[in-house]
């Protein structure tokens, strides 16, 4: 049985994993870079070890350093979280070679699903529908041109090693085939060190819908229903919900079965996500499989009632799944909003910096998974996502109402965040109707970035408050001129944790 887990990650996901470990009585080991000595995952863990400078390729991505800490602390398992080393088959292999448990799938499953062309072939063999396109990578420009014409415009040209929208080009007209191909190839080379390219039919009005799966080492595979992830910006998910407002129940059942088949095809183990692209007529096609925990896993946890991290650990312990497919149903509706430290009014420019003040939303049906706190300085080296707000409601309408209320309560000052932008999404007709697809944000961009009208009172009250604060400071300063010593003590005592000792 696993008794001590090293979490090879940082931020909200590291803390989230540690929470489930603590609930199970399992000890946790954190690793941290120079930028993260004050971070919550370091404080939350039972043990914490320094592994190098701030840039992740000198710390969180260095396999040797992480293995050293694991062995030194006697950890019997490593949880990779998401991002960083989570989909690196070499890391998974290394962990097992050193006699530790990798909380995730086998290196083989990661490799197969990591190469998009191999994954496509495997799915076709397993009978899971894929987007019409090539089965092999495109070798020459001529071959590419011919293949594109066969598939039929418009198409997507994609990097085989790809992910996150990199090395991806849409082609609508014939004369763009060659330039797009070359651009995709060079971007892929740059990003993944591999310029292999393939082509897929472009699906219009696409929905991005994914299925959560769990597989144990005894041949049991189940799905935990879908997540609708079509609200995206630059291929980055912004809002997710479950159930999908689009899916008919017969399609849901069929997709669930195919997701299970997809996992079986690679002898999957642990928690994974099968992503599909779905058109307006609810035709669906396998897109890719994420062989790790997803950012948006909490909405599934809420609606299906399963702690996915605990299931991961049970599976890693060699236990059979706690649930059978027929035990699981979707209960109510859940929505997740990702809070980014970005400025929506300035082209979503990242906004690292010092958190001055936070008010977290609370009450019925509200879960927040974050890692920042007052006085914390968000480092500029890592992902700008600082928190996830997960809402449950008895139905979709109830969940939207509650999400609005929770976003209204959520205050973070000191850095710019996407909270107001998310509130606008919750007020947007297309979202409320549930008729949105992946073009939602561009289609509603003007509405989403507009400012709420405020009567003049608002502005005058802003003036009054600032004015009053200022004159109070002046008064206070005058009366305090002669009490230097006292103030120095007090000032020190009140100073937030921004002082470098």
């Amino acid at each position, binding site marked *: 049985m696993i008794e001590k887990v090293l979490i090879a990650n940082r931020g909200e996901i590291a803390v989230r994993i540690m929470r489930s470990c603590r609930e199970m009585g399992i000890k946790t080991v954190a690793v941290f870079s120079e930028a993260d000595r004050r971070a919550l995952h370091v404080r939350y863990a039972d043990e914490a070890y320094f592994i190098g400078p701030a840039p992740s390729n000198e710390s969180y991505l260095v396999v040797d350093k992480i293995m050293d800490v694991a062995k030194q602390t006697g950890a019997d398992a490593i949880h990779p979280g998401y991002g960083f080393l989570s989909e690196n088959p070499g890391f998974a292999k290394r962990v097992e070679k050193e006699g530790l448990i990798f909380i995730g799938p086998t290196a083989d499953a990661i490799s197969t699903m990591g190469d998009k062309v191999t994954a496509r072939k495997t799915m076709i063999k397993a009978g899971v529908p894929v987007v019409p396109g090539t089965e092999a990578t495109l070798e020459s420009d001529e071959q590419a041109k011919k293949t594109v014409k066969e598939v039929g415009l418009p198409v997507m040209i994609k990097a085989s090693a790809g992910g996150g929208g990199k090395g991806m080009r849409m082609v609508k007209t014939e004369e763009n085939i060659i330039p797009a191909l070359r651009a995709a190839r060079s971007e892929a080379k740059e990003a993944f060190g591999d310029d292999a390219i393939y082509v897929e039919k472009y699906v219009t009005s696409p929905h991005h819908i994914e299925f959560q799966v769990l597989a144990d080492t005894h041949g049991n595979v189940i799905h935990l229903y879908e997540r609708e992830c079509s609200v995206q910006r630059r291929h980055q998910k912004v809002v997710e919900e479950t159930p999908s407002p689009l899916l008919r129940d017969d399609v849901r059942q069929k997709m669930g079965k195919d997701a299970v088949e997809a996992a079986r095809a690679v002898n999957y183990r642990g928690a994974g996500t099968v992503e599909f692209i779905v058109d307006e007529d609810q035709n669906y096609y396998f897109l890719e499989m994420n062989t790790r925990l997803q950012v948006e896993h909490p909405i599934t946890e809420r609606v299906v009632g399963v702690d996915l991290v605990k299931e991961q650990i049970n599976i890693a312990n060699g236990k059979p799944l706690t649930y059978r497919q027929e035990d699981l149903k979707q209960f109510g509706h859940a929505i997740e909003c990702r809070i980014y430290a970005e*400025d929506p009014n300035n082209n979503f420019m990242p906004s*690292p910096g010092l958190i001055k*003040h936070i008010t977290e939303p609370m009450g019925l049906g509200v879960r927040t998974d974050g890692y920042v706190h007052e006085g914390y300085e968000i480092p500029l080296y890592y992902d700008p996502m600082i928190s996830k707000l997960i809402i449950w409601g008895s139905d979709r309408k109830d969940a939207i109402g509650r999400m609005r209320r929770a976003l209204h309560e959520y205050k973070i000052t000191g850095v710019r965040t996407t909270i107001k932008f998310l509130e606008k999404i919750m007020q947007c007709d297309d979202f409320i109707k549930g008729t949105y697809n992946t073009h939602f944000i561009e289609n509603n961009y003007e509405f989403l970035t507009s400012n709420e009208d405020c009567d003049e009172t608002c502005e005058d009250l*802003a003036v*009054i408050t*600032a004015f*009053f604060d200022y004159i109070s400071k002046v008064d206070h300063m005058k009366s305090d001129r002669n009490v230097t010593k006292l103030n120095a003590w007090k000032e020190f005592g009140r100073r937030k944790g921004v002082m470098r000792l």
Partner: protein
Amino acid sequence: MAYEVNVDDRTAKVELAARNENQLSIKVDDITYDVDLIRVEEGVYSILYNGKSYNVELIESGSERKYVVNTLYNSYNVEVVDAETRYRRIRNRSIMEEGESHIKSPMPGKVVSVPVKKGDEVSVGQTVIIVSAMKMESEFKAKKDGTIKDILVNEGDTVKGDQDLIVIE
């Protein structure tokens, strides 16, 4: 005493007319507001005005006279101007060099590269510096034609929000 308060592009004349603990009577231009105003947390005020409950957040920004003020849906840049500041400002304006353009970083980050050097001629829209933060690179471009007068940072430097990076003359 009346103060001038700048809020975004507007300048308002503001005066405290009367006060009894947290009951304030404050005049903004021609309107007198009777408000119950009280500090409830660091940087957070609660206001009751005509029975309505408002929450206003203040973040000091750069000086004790400057604030970012957040009401429910709006964010304002507010600056309180007292007599001394007004005088200093009038004096400074006359001695300030004209025609300089400062490229500032709108956020903290790391300087990735500076594709220009001191003395280079640049034209509007030309990229003069690239800064990265949170795995995203941003290019900052010249806002006017001119000459690079000064480069205040080096490649690899960590910069703060609102820091001057490059001066174009």
